[in-house]
């Protein structure tokens, strides 16, 4: 199986191509093609994963581009990290394919939606399976294309257009960092292969400065893709896309690609203390920064989006604190519970036709499946004991603490408190209390939508048990096998207690404010209006970018415009005028007087003789 693993990404590609060609005729039957082909990918991925459990890493490559004496290759690799990712990606993609059959029902461009899903899944699986940086970069951009197309799926909406454009450009800013870092690394190592890069780093043939520089530049790419501060602003706007897309791309898979990239290049980062610290600081800061914005947002998808940004920050913090397993573990559990939350949110939106949580409420009884599933997701992300998020988040805190990043550790603890609070705020506002305006005829979603949620619900509960301090760290042992990294078997037990306490506190406070309503909800907005406005307006970062970067680009353009108009064109006109002037002067010489012609002839001849005498005929 493993030696043919390259075929896994191709099934969704076929789905894309088939639907592009004949989707129009298939109409909503397009869904079956997409579902079937991603299901094959999923089954294949699972088989590859099981085979890889007891087999060594496999890598196969061929020449892709010859440049004189250099040969760049393309191929695939199956290692513990990416065989796990293959399963996560293909599973979530398969479930989203299934869910979308219900969610997108009746949409005019239904086949196109499935085609784009196929394209994205292809790119994401291709990214995961890449054995070198160049190929990773190629698929890295292609997932960006999938994301762009799906954010802009409702292309006739101005917001969707703006969001799609923003997503593409913001991530491209990061991608240029990745490109430069990758090229600099190439000229040090003379190869894009991960194995060669790690070997060179280990052998010490790459200078410390170069490692740090390229690692940080590559991290810029990860910052863009994973919505880390300061390139995070596109991700909340990306919620303009259909909700299944938000679940697949902007929660579970693509946005985790940045984390995946840093994890894949972990030996490179480990070699530079500064790079590690950068990753940890950006991650830790983003975790609390985004969580604080999530506290006050009123759009159900945007709250989840900021929570995604924040959770990705956690993963970066873990990796930056040398918690390789913790980061990857949280990536996996987050993929499940966040996809669940988005799908459940989509189910709610599907039923009530609004995304404003102020207009929801009391849906628990009307949606007897969606509501408990959303609760499971909420419990998991809040880090309530026994749910998957609890184990992975605890791992991250342990990693931050043992690495000695004390400040970041406490920031992460506060962020965990925020997370529990805003998630339960969301839960109470949407599902409990009295039904508000929009929910009159809400009803449970069809089976194609609830089934994927049920599967994810199960995973959100149980996925954590592959790596626990109680029953064994199977995942960690397997991921780190054959390397000198190790799992934190021994950790101070108070960390677990602190983590549990803060999350319960957050839930309790949310209950007081939004469940029992014994505390005023307007506490923040009335007591501290300024900080409320700052949070509600996302720290005014978009406005800041508008005033600086966008205007700067426009100013440069205007400057060039005037150069083009007055200097370039002006010079051309001057030359034209000069030519015309000479022509006119010449015309005046031609006045019909033979004496004048004779004089000109003699002068010309004299000039030529002088030139000949001076140069000998040749310059």
């Amino acid at each position: 199986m493993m030696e043919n693993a390259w075929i896994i990404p191709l099934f969704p590609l076929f789905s894309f191509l088939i639907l592009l060609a004949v989707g129009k005729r298939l109409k909503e039957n397009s869904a079956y093609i997409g579902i079937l082909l991603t299901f094959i990918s999923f089954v294949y991925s699972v088989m590859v994963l099981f085979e890889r459990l007891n087999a060594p890493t496999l890598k196969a490559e061929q020449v892709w581009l010859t440049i004189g004496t250099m040969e760049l290759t393309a191929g695939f690799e199956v290692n513990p990290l990416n065989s796990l990712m293959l399963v996560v990606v293909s599973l979530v993609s398969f479930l989203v394919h299934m869910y979308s059959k219900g969610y997108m029902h009746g949409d005019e461009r239904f086949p196109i939606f499935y085609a784009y899903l196929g394209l994205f899944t292809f790119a994401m699986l291709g990214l995961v399976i890449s054995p070198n940086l160049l190929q990773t970069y190629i698929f890295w951009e292609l997932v960006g294309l999938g994301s762009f197309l799906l954010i802009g799926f409702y292309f006739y909406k101005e917001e969707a257009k703006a969001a799609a454009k923003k997503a593409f450009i913001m991530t491209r800013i990061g991608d240029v960092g990745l490109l430069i870092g990758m090229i600099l690394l190439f000229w040090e190592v003379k190869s894009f292969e991960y194995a060669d890069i790690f070997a060179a780093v280990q052998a010490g043939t790459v200078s410390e400065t170069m490692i740090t520089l390229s690692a940080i530049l590559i991290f810029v790419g990860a910052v863009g893709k994973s919505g880390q501060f300061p390139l995070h602003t596109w991700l909340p706007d990306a919620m303009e896309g259909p909700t299944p897309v938000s679940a697949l791309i902007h929660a579970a898979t693509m946005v985790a690609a940045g984390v995946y990239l840093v994890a894949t290049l972990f030996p490179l980062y480990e070699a530079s203390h500064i790079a590690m610290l950068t990753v940890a600081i950006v991650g830790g800061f983003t975790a609390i920064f985004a969580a604080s914005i999530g506290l006050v947002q009123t759009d159900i998808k945007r709250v989840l989006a900021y929570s995604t940004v924040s959770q990705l920050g956690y993963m970066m913090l873990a990796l930056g604190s040398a918690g390789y397993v913790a980061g990857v573990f949280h990536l996996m559990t987050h993929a499940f519970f966040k996809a669940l939350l988005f799908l459940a949110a989509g189910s709610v939106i599907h039923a009530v036709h609004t995304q404003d949580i102020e207009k929801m409420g009391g849906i628990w009884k009307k949606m007897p499946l969606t509501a408990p599933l959303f609760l499971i997701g909420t419990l998991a992300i809040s880090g309530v004991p026994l749910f998957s998020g609890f184990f992975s988040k605890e791992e991250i805190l342990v990693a931050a603490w043992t690495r000695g990043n004390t400040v970041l550790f406490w920031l992460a603890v506060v962020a965990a408190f925020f997370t529990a609070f805003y998630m339960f705020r969301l839960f109470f506002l949407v599902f409990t209390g009295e039904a508000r305006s929009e929910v009159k005829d809400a009803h449970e979603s069809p089976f194609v939508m609830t089934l994927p949620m049920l599967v994810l619900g199960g995973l959100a509960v149980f996925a954590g048990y592959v790596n626990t301090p109680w029953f064994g760290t199977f995942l960690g042992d397997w991921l780190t096998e054959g390397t000198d990294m190790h799992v934190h078997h021994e950790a101070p037990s108070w960390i677990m207690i602190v983590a549990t306490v803060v999350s319960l506190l957050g839930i309790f406070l949310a209950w007081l404010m939004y469940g029992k309503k014994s505390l005023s909800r307007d506490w923040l907005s009335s007591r501290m209006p300024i900080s409320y406005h700052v949070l509600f307006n996302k720290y005014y970062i978009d406005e800041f970018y508008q005033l600086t970067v966008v205007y700067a680009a426009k100013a440069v353009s205007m400057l060039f415009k005037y150069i083009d108009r007055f200097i370039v064109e002006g010079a051309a006109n001057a030359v034209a005028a000069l030519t015309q002037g000479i022509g006119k002067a010449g015309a005046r010489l031609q006045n019909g007087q033979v004496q004048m012609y004779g004089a000109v002839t003699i002068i010309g001849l004299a000039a030529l003789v002088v030139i000949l005498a001076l140069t000998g005929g040749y310059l």
Partner: protein
Amino acid sequence: MMDQTYFLSLLVFSPLLGIIALAFVPKEQEQMIKLIGFLATLPSLFFALLAFVQYLSGYDINSLAEKRNWIHFGKFAFLNKNTFTVDYELGIDGFALVMIVLTTILATLAAVASIHIKKEWKGYFMLFLLLEIGMLGVFAAENLVLFFIFFEITLIPMFFLIGKWGYFEKEKAAYSYLIYNGIGSAILLLVILILFARTGTSNVALLKEIFNDPAAQAQMMAPISEDLRYGLLIALLVAFGVKLPIVPLHSWMLRVHVQAPPSIVMLHSGVLLKIGAFGLIRFGLGLFPEEFRDLATFIAILGVINLLYGAFLAFIQNDFKMVLAYSSISHMGIVLIGLGALNEAGIQGAIFQVVSHGLISALLFFLVGVLYERVNTTMIDKLGGLAKAMPLTAGFLLAGAMASLGLPGMSGFVSEFTAFLGLFAAKPLIAAIGALGIIMTAVYLLRAVLTVTYGNANRDYAGVMDIRLVEAIPVLLLVALIVLIGVYPNILAEPLQATLEMIMNGLGG
């Protein structure tokens, strides 16, 4: 399999058959004229593809060279038969072959795009085919005089094609084209004459040999000093810089892009601009490698200026054609960046960019033609939401934009990446500044394309028809080629390796 003695001549001159045939067709027979015009591009296409496939399977391309006695100057023949003669010499290497394939493909597709031409089809297609002969000859010429003649053959039909079949300010555009290119030609002629006068030959291979061999230089009619070499290289840089164009020699091409009919812009942007790059590589880099090396930093800086200048200006244009015109300037910056890097990766990237941009700009201008035909404007602010009425056209336009902004999986990425790979090895600081262009390219292309196709639909255009089948076929072909090169770049890289090796040898390693 191939008749070697006439093969290249046939390839270059076969459009002449069409011109002759057209001469006998009454000028009102629109369909007939268009059909003949289209068919006349096919023989060259066939020969070019045949040669390409043969070359890929190991055929020695040098055996296609042709040589016939042509002109003798003075009475030197008794001294040395080869001195002061201009022979009719055709010959190609991998690079020239690739350019010829590109030219023939684009000529055929541009002939299809010419269905939108509204008047005087007969004259149009005769000039069109003459233009094709000129372009093919430029790439197949083995000596400088012949090169120059073909170079001029492209100039004249182009002048009339712009001036007669263009849009509102067509005359101004045509004159602007003629004056700038005329000056470029004059400078080029000067260089050619100096070389010919000093060495007694204009054969490119022979010239290379003479320049590389000190003994041969001693035998020259008159030696070429170091200073003169720099002078000649800079003159070449200006002559081909007008064509490419290098900022600030570009203002003529903006007018041509906007005023000429889209089918002609396909050839102009797709092939004619590339003659500038071709000339720079073949003659500038080929004949004066040492001097080129000294100017490399300067050329790289020019490249970055082109890249950023074009990108920032494309960002604020309101005419979609202007966006594409500045985009061409910006993309030609990548060619200069690659040449400025002056290593394997850089030069290959530059050549890749020449081919890739040829295909991409042809695709985009074909679509501009399709669009203009239906909505009668290319002003961005008047359009919007066209994806609703014409989803396929909008999709293709987006595909073209993605190719142009260097999306991996399409040819633009390979060329951009390879050129930057080269420049980062040679001059990382200049390259880092240039990398800003990668972001700006995405910014201006998405702005332009999304404004046209996404967002609120303009009600005036709610009923416009989507792309027709006859139009969709060329578009699909171009997209397929762009993707083919992007996915399997070695199909283009392999034929170039011999040329690349020769250039690197000239550079001394």
